[in-house]
């Protein structure tokens, strides 16, 4: 890829191909334009029609996701999703990937990922109150992985800590499939009054178009098309496009924009994300059904001799585009001056339905907006539907590793060990509203300032399930997010998603994608948990090798009374009760992988009716006040969930025998879904209530002491458990 382009080259099909447009797509450009496009025009088409901006491979499938509910104010289509959370307030949230940049330059890639998603949220008028991140890395043994993990974690912390938005949760997995394609998905949640939400549709012929924030440089030119391309051995050459984040400027931009939003100066506003000035201006004018004229001479520039092509495609960070009411320029400029940010009127809204770009007296681009979006390519790519694997014969599985030894190994494994090394670099407390920080509860709990309410926030996905059975995996990811919110006592409201997949031109990858969507849609429908925003990241392949399908889910819920939110930490003298039935499902379990050394079988089936019934029961019990602590059962199974509760509360427990009819391994390590562990002062009422509700429940044991003890008399100390749990990151990173 030849960027930046210094001297204009003849525009032809060959150049179009270099820009990522195929012959057919270039043909459409010619048809729309009725002539050969200029270099700048070709640049605009190529980024608008890139996978990243146009969703050309995924759009037909994304439509299957449910997006509506009474509490959804704005679903997909805006910069972020908006849900009503009561008290006249809304939560505005979205997740976005920065996978490719984070592989090339882990620190800056992750940092600018956080910056980008923050802008998507505050551009709608919300003050960001929480960040989360979903991360997937290659094998720890791969020497490159350590550098990537270190850089990504520092980058997320470096940006989030500086802007003063607490990073309150996330998830991390390791797998060889991510060796050449780590995933960095960042999520931001903000709060705005329901009647003060800002949208991006431009309006008002003659209204000024204003550029604010940082100056434009040659950063990230063709970032959007890069995000839509596979890596190969020459990827290093794409490096000059790396963008550097400036969280300080972002912080000023947040404050300045929110200050401006308190006035009535703004007609429409949008951040300059991927494809910068191009996508923001095209989308704002396009959505408003108007035209737009840009005068690039007025664009604040960091470098000399920038061309129109470069300015239109630059992905310099920390910039916003605003359509102002007529006459609001002075008031607006004063606010940005106060915050020492650039402010420039760079154009105006027209009634032509065209984007017109001028630079140094030259007409650089003149494109009709409607065909640019309406005739954007849309592919129903060939699909090869995945065949779900046969379930394992669980009964045939045996092991000589004793249960307590298996627990110690599992809890020390990279996918289950303590993530404290990571979250101890993220400021989770800033803002003074964080009720449950990372590790304290299944979902982070962040209170809303001035209200008794709190949000419950989580990210979830189990890629190994998705790999084995994408449909079930997609369903499970949504169900787990719903369950994690439920386990705190909060009411799940909606999700954002980040669909990370391989090359969509391969039928089997499209099959994974479509099946995952179908599974997600089924779960969203059954759980009243609509999708309000999201992001698609395709072509996560290096030299033909793809990642595990990873539909990361960011879930949001609300709890009316923040002090009622439950964590996972147990205290002494409590009964431990398991909610939900256990068949002992070991297919695709971590026990199978870590102890038996096999990645096999079908993932645990998700029964959405049971999910809903069990979750509603648990939430009801928490609201009724009898539940001291609650944790869902997920990766690693029941015993891992119990051990995590013990570690969080620094309290041991004594367990009863496993029931008959299920193997010991299956009972303690099976990953059957729709299950929770509750700790309550006296299990009697809880068990009775479960019986009445038709929910399977079982008394597991009682808390106390500083050991984990099994009925047979075997025990391990909390100290030993903690050492095992905390060993991995400390040893790896020292």
């Amino acid at each position, binding site marked *: 890829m030849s960027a930046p382009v210094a001297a204009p080259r003849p525009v032809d099909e060959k150049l179009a191909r270099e820009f990522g447009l195929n012959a057919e797509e270039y043909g459409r450009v010619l048809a729309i334009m009725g002539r050969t496009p200029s270099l700048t025009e070709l640049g605009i088409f190529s980024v608008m029609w890139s996978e990243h901006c146009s969703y050309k491979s995924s759009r037909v499938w994304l439509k299957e996701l449910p997006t509506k509910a009474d509490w959804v104010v704005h679903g997909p289509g805006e910069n972020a999703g908006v849900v009503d959370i009561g008290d006249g307030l809304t939560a505005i949230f979205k997740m976005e990937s920065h996978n490719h940049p984070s592989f090339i330059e882990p620190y800056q890639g992750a940092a600018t990922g956080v910056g980008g998603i923050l802008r998507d949220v505050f551009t709608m008028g919300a003050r960001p109150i929480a960040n989360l991140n979903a991360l997937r890395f290659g094998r720890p043994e791969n020497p490159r992985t350590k550098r990537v993990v270190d850089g990504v974690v520092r980058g997320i912390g470096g940006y989030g800590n500086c802007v003063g938005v607490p990073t309150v949760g996330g998830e991390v997995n390791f797998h060889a499939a991510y060796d050449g394609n780590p995933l960095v998905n960042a999520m931001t949640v903000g709060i705005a009054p329901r009647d003060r939400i800002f949208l991006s549709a431009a309006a008002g012929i003659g209204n000024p178009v204003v550029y604010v924030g940082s100056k434009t440089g*040659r*950063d990230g030119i063709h970032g959007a098309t890069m995000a839509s391309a596979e890596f190969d051995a020459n990827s290093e050459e794409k490096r*000059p496009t790396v*963008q550097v984040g400036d969280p300080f400027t972002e912080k000023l931009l947040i404050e300045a924009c929110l200050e401006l939003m308190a006035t009535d100066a703004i007609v429409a506003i949008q951040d300059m994300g991927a494809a910068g000035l191009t996508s923001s201006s095209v989308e704002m004018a396009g959505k408003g059904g108007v035209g737009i004229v840009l005068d690039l001479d007025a664009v604040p520039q960091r470098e000399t001799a920038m061309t129109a092509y470069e300015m239109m495609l630059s992905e310099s*960070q920390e910039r916003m585009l605003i359509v102002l009411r007529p006459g609001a320029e002075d008031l607006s400029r004063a606010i940005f001056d106060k915050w020492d940010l650039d402010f420039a009127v760079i154009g105006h809204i027209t009634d032509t339905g065209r984007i017109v770009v001028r630079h140094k007296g030259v007409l650089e681009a003149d494109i009709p907006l409607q065909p640019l979006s309406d005739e954007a390519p849309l592919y129903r790519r060939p699909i090869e539907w995945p065949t779900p694997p046969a379930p394992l014969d669980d009964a045939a599985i045996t092991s000589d590793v004793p249960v307590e030894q298996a627990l110690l190994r599992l809890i020390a494994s990279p996918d289950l060990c303590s993530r404290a090394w990571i979250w101890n670099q993220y400021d989770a407390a800033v803002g003074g509203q964080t009720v449950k920080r990372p590790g304290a509860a299944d979902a982070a709990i962040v209170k809303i300032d001035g209200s008794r309410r709190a949000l419950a926030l989580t990210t979830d996905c189990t890629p190994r399930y998705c790999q084995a059975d994408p449909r079930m995996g997609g369903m499970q990811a949504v169900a787990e997010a719903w369950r994690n919110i439920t386990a705190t006592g909060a009411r799940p409201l909606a999700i954002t998603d980040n669909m990370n997949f391989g090359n969509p031109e391969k039928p089997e990858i499209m099959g994974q994608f479509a099946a995952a969507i179908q599974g997600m849609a089924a779960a969203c429908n059954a759980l009243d948990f609509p999708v309000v925003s999201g992001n698609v990241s395709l072509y996560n392949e290096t030299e033909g090798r793809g990642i595990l399908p990873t539909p990361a889910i960011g879930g949001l819920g609300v709890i009316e009374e923040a002090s009622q939110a439950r964590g996972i930490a147990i205290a002494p003298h409590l009964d431990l009760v398991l909610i939900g039935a256990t068949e002992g499902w070991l297919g695709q379990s971590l026990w199978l992988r870590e102890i038996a050394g096999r990645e096999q079988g079908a993932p645990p089936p998700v029964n959405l009716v049971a999910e809903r019934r069990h979750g509603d029961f648990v939430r009801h019990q928490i609201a009724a006040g009898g539940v001291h602590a609650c944790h869902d059962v997920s990766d690693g199974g029941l015993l891992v969930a119990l051990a995590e509760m013990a570690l969080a509360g620094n309290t041991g427990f004594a367990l009863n025998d496993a029931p008959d009819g299920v193997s010991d391994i299956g009972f303690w390590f099976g990953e059957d879904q729709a299950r929770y562990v509750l700790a309550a002062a006296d299990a009697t009422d809880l068990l009775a209530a479960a019986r009445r509700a038709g929910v399977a429940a079982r008394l597991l044991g009682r808390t106390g002491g500083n050991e984990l003890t099994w009925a047979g008399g075997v025990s391990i100390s909390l100290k030993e458990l903690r050492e095992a749990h905390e060993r991995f990151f400390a040893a790896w990173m020292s």
Partner: protein
Amino acid sequence: MKAIVTVMLKPGVLDPQGRAIGHALETLGFEGVGEVRAGKIIELELAETDTARARAAAEAMAAKLLANTVIESYRVEVV
């Protein structure tokens, strides 16, 4: 010998630190300050006594660790 490795952001790469310093100098009343770039300097005591070999070693260290060549360039001086 002593090797001095200077690491600067490549031209064109945003240098928020340099910009902030320039802005602060202006606020403090210093006039005529144009572009400001901020970088790192690493001074290494080397056991090596041959200048050429010391330089080669420092170059290797810079390329491998001291500079992030994705966004930074470096120069080596041996004294």
